[in-house]
């Protein structure tokens, strides 16, 4: 690959890297804000429920994750993360082709067996009726998880870009050892 092409690719990668760094900074600020909101909501919940009512003593002895991470490899060494919630049901779509009314005869004769039990909502660890602040805390941390996946993808892309740039710089030095 000729030196001008390498330089052009290097410039492109550098611009991409700088863009990723800027995006990372923005997402980090939002994540930090969400987490801080979550702490504040937890503190309010603790105030409402009692000092020892929101903490490790309430953790369940058996936990199933509601949220999992799917990874995909766009290029070698470049990973992308996506948060997926377990038990998310897509709503039934009633298309325009169904002109007739659906009959409502009550429960079906052969009920469909549940493929997997939906994981228990961690809010249930803290009681049946939990204060609104605890739900707000859950929402804040859930948003934080989505941002965490985006940030992890960006960090991975930054590391990948850094390695690519280093590789190109080495090639360039070999092609133009005395270039200024």
């Amino acid at each position, binding site marked *: 690959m000729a030196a001008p092409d390498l330089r052009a690719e290097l410039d492109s990668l550098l611009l991409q*890297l700088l863009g990723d760094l800027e995006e990372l900074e923005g997402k980090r600020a939002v994540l930090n804000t969400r987490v801080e909101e979550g702490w504040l909501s937890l503190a309010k919940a603790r105030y409402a429920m009692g000092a020892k009512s929101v903490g490790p003593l309430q953790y369940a002895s058996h936990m199933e994750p509601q949220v999992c991470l799917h990874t995909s490899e766009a290029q070698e060494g470049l990973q992308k993360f996506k948060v997926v919630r377990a038990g998310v049901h897509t709503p039934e779509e009633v298309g325009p082709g169904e002109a007739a009314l659906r009959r409502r005869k009550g429960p079906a004769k052969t009920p469909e067996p549940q493929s997997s039990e939906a994981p228990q909502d961690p809010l249930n660890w803290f009681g049946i009726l939990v204060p609104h602040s605890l739900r707000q805390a859950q929402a804040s941390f859930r948003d934080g998880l989505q941002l965490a996946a985006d940030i992890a993808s960006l960090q991975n892309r930054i590391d990948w870009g850094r390695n690519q740039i280093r590789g190109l710089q080495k090639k360039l030095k070999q092609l133009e050892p005395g270039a200024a």
Partner: protein
Amino acid sequence: MAGRGKLIAVIGDEDTVTGFLLGGIGELNKNRHPNFLVVEKDTTINEIEDTFRSLGSLLGSVVEAKPNEHDPPLWDEIDSRQFLHRDDIGIILINQYIAEMVRHALDAHQHSIPAVLEIPSKEHPYDAAKDSILRRARGMFTAEDLR
């Protein structure tokens, strides 16, 4: 684990871990150790390091021999506790002040999975200057490279 996806692990103070567990990332059953660690005042640095080490290392970790211990811990017990040894963890969330305690282990972790994300804590706001990823990115530009 095919089709199930990876987990998100968290190492942090009580509020951070409680919050993210509320978000639904926790896993705890009879067979596996938890994917979270609550760091308290009496939690030792060795415990944090043991839990964290090898979460992303494909080469595995080396348990240092402790001359005072006559009964070395079981390899299986250590491996199942260590996040880096587990291949089902995709992201590790860790409070930055805890990350500082095990900075050498974080800096040694070069793999893309699991990704390590440093987050602030209540008493210690996030400092970009201490973040391993950003320090690596900042250190790649020298005056000579930019000529």
